[in-house]
C-alpha cells in the first residue's frame, strides 16, 4: 500500500464534511478551491493499482489509475468546481456539502479497481444525491426524493446480488470486462442500467431531478448517469443488447421532451436521450465507439450543466418553471440567453461546439461497422436532439411570445459559472485535441472535414425548419405525459388499496362469523361457569352430603361387581 498518494474522492468527501463549519468568503473560496485541488490529486494518481487492502479473503483495490478512470474523475472534479461556483448563493447549508460527497463518491467509482469498492461508492452516491434533492425543502421534492431513493436502493440490491454471485463463481473481486453470460452478470448489468436511466425504470430521472433546487439539478445531472456510463464502458463493452437499449433511450427522451412543459423536465428527458447515445457507443464496442461514448460523457456533463444553469437562473429569478409561463426573457437576461443557447447548440452537436467533436465519433463507429439501421437511427436522433433541446428549450424559455416577465440577470457567481462552462463548450469544439488526448484509446478521427460540417449543418438546419413549420403542433399546454413512474405512483398504490379492500372484505365475510362463534362459546362458558352459572352456584350442605353418599355407594358397587 502506497501512502504517498491521496485518494481524490475521499479528500473531496472529507472536505465536504468540513464545509458546514466554514462561513463567508472562507467558505466561498473552499467551495471552488476544494474540487480544483481534488482535480490536481486525480492527476497525481499513477497507472495501475495504488491502494490495496485485504478484506475477508479478497484483495480490494480502492484506488487504481488508468486513462479511462482519469478521464471520468477529471470531469467529475471539474463539474464539482463549476457547480460549486454556481451554487455559492444557495441558502441551503446541506446541498453543496451533499453534492460534494456525491461528486467524491463518483470519483471513487471512477478510480475503483474492484467491484466491492464500486458498490460501496455507488450506494454512497445514492444517499448523497437523495440529500441534494431533499435539501430543496418542499413537500414535492421530499416525496420525489423518496421515490428516487426507492428506485436506487432497488438497483443497489440487484447489483449487490450480482456482485455476490460473480465473486462466488469466479473468486475474483477485480472490476474487469464481463459479458452477460450468467445470472450474476445479468444482475450486475441491470444494476448499472438502472443508474443509467434505462427502461423500464427510466422515469426516476425526469421525476426526481427537476424537483431539486435551482442549483441542485445542476449537480444531479452530472454524476449518477455518467458513472453508469463509465462502469458500462469498463464492464460491458461490445454487449450488443446495449445498442438497442441505447436507441430506445434516445427516442424515448426526444418524444417525451417534445411533449413536456416544465423546462427542467425537458432537459431531464434529454439527459436520458444523450446517455442513450453513449450506451449505443458502448454496445458497438469498437475503440472508436468507446472513445466516442467516453468523450460524449465528458462534453455532455459540461453542456448539460450549462443548460441547467441557465434554466436554474431563470427559475431563481422568475420563480417559474413552465414553458407556458415563460418567454421573452432575452430582453433582460441576455447573458443567460447566450449561455443557454451555447449549451443548446453544444447538445445539438453544432459545428464549433463540444458536441460536434464527441457525438459524431459514435455515429462514425456505426458507419465503420456498416450498421445501417443503427446509423440511420443515430442520424434521425441527432436531428431530434436539435428539435427537443437545441431549439425547443431556448425558444420557449427565452424567446417565443413576450411573457411580460422582466427578471434581472442572476448574481455574479452564477454568471461566472455559466461563462466558464460556455467557454469550455466552445473551446472543446474548436480545439478537440486536448480532450482526444485524454480518451482511453488512440484517436484516429478528424471531426472537421468539409463533408462532416456540411452534412451536419444540413441535418440541423432542416430540423430547425421542421420545428418552425410544425410550431403549432408544439404549442405548450398545461399537461404532463404519463411515464413509467405511473406504475409506482398510481398503479402500485391502487393495487395496495385494492388489496386492503379485499382484506376488509375477507374480514367481513369470514372473520365476523368466526368472532360470533367464539363469542357464542365464551357466552356458553360464562353461562355454565360464571358467577350465576350452574356449576358455580353455592350448594346447600345437605345436597353435598347426599351426592358424596351417592358417589361412595357407586364406588362400593363397582368394587364388588
Amino acid at each position: 500500500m502506497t501512502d504517498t498518494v491521496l485518494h481524490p474522492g475521499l479528500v473531496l468527501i472529507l472536505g465536504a464534511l468540513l464545509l458546514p463549519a466554514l462561513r463567508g468568503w472562507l467558505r466561498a473560496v473552499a467551495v471552488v478551491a476544494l474540487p480544483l485541488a481534488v482535480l490536481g490529486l486525480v492527476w497525481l494518481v499513477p497507472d495501475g493499482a495504488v491502494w490495496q487492502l485485504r478484506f475477508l479473503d479478497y484483495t480490494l483495490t480502492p484506488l487504481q489509475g488508468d486513462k479511462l478512470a482519469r478521464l471520468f474523475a477529471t470531469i467529475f472534479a471539474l463539474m464539482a468546481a463549476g457547480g460549486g461556483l454556481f451554487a455559492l448563493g444557495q441558502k441551503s447549508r446541506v446541498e453543496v456539502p451533499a453534492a460534494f460527497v456525491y461528486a467524491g463518491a463518483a470519483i471513487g467509482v471512477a478510480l475503483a479497481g474492484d467491484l466491492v469498492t464500486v458498490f460501496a461508492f455507488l450506494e454512497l452516491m445514492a444517499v448523497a444525491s437523495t440529500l441534494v434533492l431533499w435539501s430543496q425543502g418542499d413537500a414535492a421534492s421530499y416525496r420525489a426524493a423518496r421515490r428516487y431513493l426507492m428506485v436506487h436502493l432497488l438497483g443497489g440490491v440487484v447489483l449487490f446480488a450480482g456482485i455476490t454471485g460473480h465473486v462466488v463463481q469466479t473468486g475474483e473481486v477485480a472490476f474487469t470486462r464481463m459479458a452477460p453470460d450468467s445470472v450474476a452478470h445479468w444482475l450486475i448489468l441491470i444494476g448499472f442500467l438502472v443508474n443509467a436511466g434505462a427502461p423500464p425504470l427510466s422515469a426516476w430521472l425526469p421525476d426526481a431531478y427537476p424537483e431539486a433546487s435551482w442549483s441542485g439539478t445542476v449537480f444531479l445531472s452530472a454524476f449518477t448517469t455518467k458513472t453508469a456510463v463509465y462502469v458500462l464502458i469498463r464492464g460491458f463493452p461490445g454487449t450488443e443488447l446495449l445498442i438497442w437499449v441505447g436507441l430506445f433511450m434516445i427516442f424515448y427522451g426526444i418524444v417525451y421532451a417534445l411533449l413536456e412543459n416544465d423546462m427542467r423536465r425537458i432537459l431531464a428527458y434529454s439527459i436520458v436521450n444523450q446517455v442513450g447515445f453513449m450506451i449505443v457507443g458502448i454496445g458497438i464496442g469498437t475503440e472508436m465507439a468507446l472513445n466516442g461514448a467516453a468523450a460524449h460523457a465528458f462534453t455532455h456533463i459540461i453542456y448539460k450543466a450549462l443548460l441547467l444553469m441557465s434554466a436554474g437562473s431563470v427559475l431563481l429569478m422568475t420563480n417559474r418553471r413552465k414553458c407556458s409561463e415563460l418567454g421573452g426573457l432575452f430582453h433582460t437576461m441576455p447573458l443567460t440567453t447566450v449561455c443557454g443557447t451555447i449549451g443548446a447548440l453544444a447538445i445539438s452537436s453544432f459545428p464549433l461546439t463540444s458536441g460536434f467533436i464527441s457525438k459524431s465519433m459514435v455515429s462514425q463507429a456505426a458507419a465503420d461497422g456498416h450498421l445501417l439501421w443503427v446509423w440511420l437511427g443515430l442520424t434521425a436522433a441527432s436531428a431530434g436532439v436539435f428539435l427537443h433541446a437545441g431549439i425547443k428549450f431556448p425558444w420557449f424559455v427565452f424567446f417565443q411570445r413576450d411573457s411580460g416577465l422582466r427578471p434581472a440577470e442572476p448574481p455574479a457567481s452564477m454568471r461566472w459559472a455559466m461563462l466558464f462552462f460556455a467557454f469550455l463548450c466552445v473551446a472543446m469544439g474548436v480545439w478537440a485535441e486536448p480532450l482526444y488526448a485524454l480518451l482511453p484509446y488512440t484517436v484516429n478521427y478528424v471531426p472537421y472535414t468539409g463533408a462532416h460540417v456540411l452534412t451536419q449543418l444540413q441535418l440541423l438546419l432542416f430540423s430547425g425548419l421542421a420545428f418552425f413549420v410544425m410550431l403549432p403542433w408544439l404549442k405548450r399546454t398545461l399537461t404532463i405525459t404519463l411515464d413509467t413512474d405511473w406504475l409506482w405512483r398510481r398503479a402500485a398504490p391502487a393495487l395496495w388499496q385494492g388489496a386492503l379492500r379485499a382484506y376488509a372484505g375477507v374480514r367481513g365475510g369470514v372473520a365476523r362469523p368466526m368472532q360470533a362463534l367464539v363469542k357464542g362459546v365464551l357466552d356458553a362458558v360464562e353461562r355454565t361457569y360464571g358467577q350465576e352459572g350452574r356449576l358455580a352456584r353455592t350448594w346447600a350442605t345437605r345436597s353435598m352430603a347426599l351426592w358424596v353418599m351417592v358417589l361412595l355407594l357407586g364406588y362400593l358397587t363397582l368394587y364388588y361387581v
Partner: protein
Amino acid sequence: MSHTPPTLVPPFPPPSHWLDDPRHVKLLWRGFLAVLAFTVLAELAVHLHPHFGIEGVFAFHAWFGFAACTAMIVLAKGLALLLKRPDNYYGRRDD
C-alpha cells in the same frame, strides 16, 4: 453570498428590442432560408464520401433531418392522445 429575490415588473415595459420588430423577424427568416438553400447547393462543391448507398442521394441529410423531425413530432402527438394528463394529475406538485 446571497442572491437577489425574483424580480418581476408588471405591467411590463413595451418591447423595444431589435428582435421585437416583425420586419426584422422577416429578415431573419429570409436569411435562414438562404442559408438552408446554400447548405444544399454546397453539396455540389464538397465531396461527401458516403458510407451507405442512401447517403449518396442528393441532399440526404437535409430531407432526412426534416422528415425525421416531422415523424417524431407526429409520433409524440399520437402518444400524447394516450398519455397526456393535466399537470396536476399527481396532485398540485405535491404528491
